[in-house]
C-alpha cells in the first residue's frame, strides 16, 4: 500500500503546484451560479426553491471540467506506462488518483456551495444539509468520472464525449442529493435515508469504478 499513498501524495502535490484545475472548477462554479439570478430575475421565492438543484447541477458540471486531466497528464509524460509495471495493481492506482481528484476538487467545490447559496437566497438552515449531501455524494462524481476519463483518454476533444458518458451515471447521485436537501427543508426524517442512499451510491462507485477504469486504461496502453 506504500505505492497507493505515494501516488495519492504526489497527485495532491501536483494539484497544489499546478493549481489550474481547482481554480478553473471553482471559477466555473462561481460564474454559472452567479449568472443564474441574472437570467431568471430577482424572484427570491423562485431562487430559494431552485437553489439546491442549481447548486448540485453546477457542481457536477464544474467537477466534470477537471475530469479529462485525471489520466491525461500521466499518459502524456509516460508515467502511466511505468505505473502499469508497478507492484500496485492498476485498479488501486486508479483509486488513488480518483481519491486525489475528490480531495482536490470535490471537497473544495462542496465547501464553496454554501457561499454560492447566498446568491440564490438558499435558506441558511439548509446549509449543513447541503454540505453533508455534497460531501457524501461527490466521491461518486470522482470515481464514476474516472471511468469516463479512462475511456476517453486518447480521444481527440474527449471532453464532450466524457460528459456524454459520465453525466447519465451521475443521475442517482443528483436525485438523492436533491431529495435529501428537500427532506431537510421540510424537517422530515427522510433526510437520513436519502443521505444513506447517497453514501451507498458513492461506496458502490468506489468499489466498481476503479476496476472498470483500470480495464479501460489497459486497453488504452496496448
Amino acid at each position: 500500500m506504500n505505492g497507493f499513498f505515494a501516488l495519492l501524495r504526489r497527485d495532491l502535490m501536483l494539484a497544489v503546484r499546478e493549481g489550474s484545475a481547482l481554480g478553473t472548477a471553482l471559477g466555473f462554479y462561481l460564474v454559472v451560479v452567479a449568472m443564474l439570478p441574472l437570467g431568471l430575475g430577482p424572484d427570491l421565492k423562485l431562487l430559494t426553491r431552485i437553489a439546491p438543484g442549481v447548486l448540485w447541477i453546477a457542481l457536477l458540471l464544474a467537477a466534470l471540467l477537471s475530469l479529462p486531466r485525471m489520466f491525461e497528464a500521466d499518459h502524456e509524460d509516460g508515467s502511466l506506462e511505468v505505473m502499469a509495471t508497478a507492484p500496485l495493481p492498476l485498479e488501486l492506482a486508479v483509486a488513488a488518483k480518483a481519491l486525489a481528484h475528490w480531495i482536490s476538487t470535490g471537497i473544495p467545490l462542496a465547501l464553496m456551495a454554501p457561499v454560492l447559496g447566498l446568491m440564490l437566497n438558499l435558506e441558511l438552515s439548509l446549509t449543513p444539509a447541503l454540505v453533508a449531501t455534497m460531501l457524501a455524494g461527490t466521491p461518486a462524481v470522482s470515481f464514476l468520472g474516472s471511468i469516463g476519463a479512462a475511456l476517453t483518454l486518447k480521444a481527440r476533444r474527449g471532453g464532450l464525449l466524457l460528459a456524454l458518458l459520465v453525466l447519465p451515471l451521475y443521475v442517482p447521485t443528483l436525485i438523492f442529493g436533491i431529495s435529501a436537501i428537500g427532506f431537510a427543508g421540510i424537517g422530515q426524517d427522510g433526510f437520513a435515508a436519502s443521505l444513506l442512499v447517497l453514501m451507498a451510491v458513492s461506496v458502490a462507485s468506489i468499489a466498481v469504478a476503479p476496476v472498470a477504469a483500470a480495464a479501460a486504461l489497459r486497453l488504452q496502453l496496448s
Partner: protein
Amino acid sequence: MQTHSAPFHKTACSTLKRDDRLQLHADNLTVERGTRTVIANLTFTANAGEALLLTGPNGAGKTTLIRTIGGFIAPVSGKIALKGDVSDRDIPELCHYVGHLTGVKANLTAEQNLAFWAEYLGGVSTRSIAERVDDALDAFGLLALADYPAGLLSAGQKRRLGLARLIVAERPIWLLDEPTVSLDAASTTLLAGLIQRHIANDGLVIAATHLPLGLEQPRYLRLGSSAPATDEPTQGAAP
C-alpha cells in the same frame, strides 16, 4: 514451428538444471497491431548476464516486442515465460520499462520525481529511499540539479532523469526502447557502463537501439521481414 520448439524445451530444461539463473524465453510469439502482423512466430531466449539488442529497420517491431514483454500488448499467439530463480511475480513487475516518454513530472523537482518512483516501484532494498535517490542522481550526473523542477531541465537531462529510475528501484530485467535518444556522447557512455554493471550483476537487458551502445559482448536479435527470426541470434550481425 511445433517440431522446432520441442527440442528447444529440452535444451532449456537442461540449461535450467545446470544454471538456475533468470532466463526469459519467448516461444513462437506472434503480435498484431491493428490488423497488421508485426511479429510473426518469433522464438528467442535471453539469459541473465547478457544484453540482447533488438535491431531492424523502422517498423520492424522493436517497440512492439518490448511492449509485449512489458505486458502492455497481449500476443495473438505464443507466450513469454520466465525461467530460473524468480519469485511468483508477473513479468512486468520484474521489468523496468523505459519507453519513448520519460515519465518525468515537470512540476516536481528531479529529486521528488525519483523519490516517488522509488516508493511506487517498490523493490526490496536495505537502503533508504533518500540514499537510493541520491545514488541514482549521482550515477547520471544530476546531483547538482536535484532541487530544480524537472520542467526546467533540458531534453537530455530529462532523459537521464527518466533513466535514473533504473537505479532507484532494483529490477532484474531492463526493457529499454531507444534509450539513447537525446543523450550526448558522455551520457551514452555512462548508460553503457550502467548496462554493463547490471549485466555483471546477473541482470538482463533487452534494448531496442540503432547505436551499438559500446557494450562489450551484446547479442543481437534482428527483427523485420528481411531476416528470419532465429532463436540463436548471430553475434555482431547488426549494421
